[in-house]
């Protein structure tokens, strides 16, 4: 059995459907492009937000445990070792007083003040610390509780250096961004589905006589369906290409320094485009299946 003529038939009918009903096909192309555009933009925004949040999260999940000045280097290493083996700790590094001073001079511009203090006999006021990179922000509170009872630590109210407020706020942002993005994608997806369904239903209505004859002479349901599914897929994929093109254009126009707008990288842009194409094809074929159902009912 040679499948090539059947394939040709399916492709020809699908293209004819689009060309003959170009009014509704164009309308569906346009609206599906718009909805995919919305979905693509939403995904881009969510990714960009997520990146920002990740940065903040990674900062929030660094826990600086300040050491009391009197402890020996050996006990400091010992404490570092103990903390490093905690399950929620990704990495631990020791930062001595000199390093703390150097860090403060470079990032905070405190070099002059520190120099004055040291030369006037005041010594280096900055404590040594163990810097913990935690696996997630949720672990910060637990680790903090654990270390705050140790007598090896710097006395006083600010033994560790992190902002308690940041954690719930960051978590809140992440949740809101993900939820909002999901809702947006779901809504525009539903709109696209309805429009493709209407388009295919119209094509099937125009071809009702052909469908009737196909069924009478013994064509299988799948043979009747395929051209319409392909039609939906073609509309979906073309829409996705258009949407990707527009998104890329906007991204390039508003981007800078090798990145697109919102700091979206090339890799992500390609992924979004591929996702839109896949989404368009799936939406198109699913919409067609729904659209053709009624015509196959009898």
């Amino acid at each position, binding site marked *: 059995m040679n499948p090539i*003529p*059947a394939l040709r038939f399916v492709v020809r009918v699908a293209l004819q459907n689009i060309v003959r009903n170009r009014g509704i096909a164009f309308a569906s192309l346009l609206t599906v492009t718009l909805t995919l555009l919305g979905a693509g933009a939403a995904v881009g925004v969510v990714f960009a937000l997520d990146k920002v949040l990740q940065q903040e999260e990674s900062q929030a999940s660094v826990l600086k445990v300040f050491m009391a000045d009197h402890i020996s280097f050996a006990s400091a290493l010992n404490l570092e070792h103990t903390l490093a083996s905690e399950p929620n700790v990704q990495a631990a590094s020791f930062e001595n007083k000199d390093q703390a001073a150097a860090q403060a001079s470079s990032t905070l511009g405190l070099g002059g003040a520190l120099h004055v203090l040291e030369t006037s006999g005041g010594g280096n006021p900055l404590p040594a610390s163990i810097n913990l990179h935690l696996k997630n922000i949720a672990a910060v509170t637990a680790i903090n509780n654990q270390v705050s009872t140790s007598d090896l630590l710097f006395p006083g109210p600010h033994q560790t250096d992190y902002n308690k407020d940041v954690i719930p706020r960051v978590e809140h942002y992440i949740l809101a961004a993900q939820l909002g993005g999901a809702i947006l994608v779901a809504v525009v997806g539903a709109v696209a589905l309805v429009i493709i369904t209407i388009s295919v239903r119209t094509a099937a209505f125009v071809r009702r006589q052909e469908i009737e004859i196909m069924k009478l002479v013994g064509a299988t349901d799948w043979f009747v369906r395929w051209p319409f599914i392909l039609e939906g897929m073609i509309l979906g994929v073309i829409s996705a290409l258009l949407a990707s093109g527009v998104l890329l254009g906007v991204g390039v126009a508003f981007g800078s320094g090798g990145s697109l707008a919102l700091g979206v990288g090339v890799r992500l842009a390609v992924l979004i485009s591929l996702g839109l194409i896949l989404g368009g094809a799936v939406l198109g074929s699913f919409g067609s299946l729904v659209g053709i159902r009624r015509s196959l009912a009898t």
Partner: protein
Amino acid sequence: MSISTSPAPPRPQVAETTRPARHEPPIIVFQNVSKTYPNGATAIRDVSFTIPPRDFVFVVGASGAGKSTIIRLLIREETATKGHVLVEGQDLARLRRRHLPRLRRKMGIVFQDFKLLPTLTVAQNVAFAIQVTDPGRSHLKEKVGEALYIVGLEDKLNTFPTELSGGEQQRVAIARALVHRPRIFLADEPTGNLDPDAGWGIVQLLLQINHRGATVVMATHNREVVDLCRRRVLAMEGGGLIRDEQEGQYLKDGEANL
């Protein structure tokens, strides 16, 4: 054989009988079949008959008597509400939807309104039946040519349906129904839209198809045709089968004119 214009084609001789194979198992069985449509209209009631292979059967009756319903049950466009419809021993109520194409390919079906695709030529209309059922389309040209030769339209391959007479259009529909070499040929009012001469041409063609071995069921209220052919007649009235006669007539003696 060319029937396109006058003179009228020779009318079939009553004596030219085919041989319904009554000793073989019946190819079509109606067993106490009733059909009530979803709107509550009962189209046929408790209808029973059997048709042996190679029989030629007229189904007659007034408008609304249930003729088309019998055809629709046979092609399983509808299913019986009560009773059983069997084709080649297969109970159509139990036929799975995915096996429906196999049933339809065993059958040739034509209607009063031809159902040709106006954008396709004669040859393309006939080829369509192969293209949508046989992805390999083996011997497409030969099969189309043969079917059009049987109906006498081998010289109209590239003509469009709108350029043909009604009788010729029905011939194209018959050719399309023949490409699968059906064992059963169903015709619902095939002469309904035709003038008497063209109608006769179609009936002759159906007799010829029957002669080649197909079982033919023709629903009609064409009295002249039925009375001249003297074939088996199933007469319907108000959804019931009132008469089943070999070499029957449209009306029984003394029956009111329908």
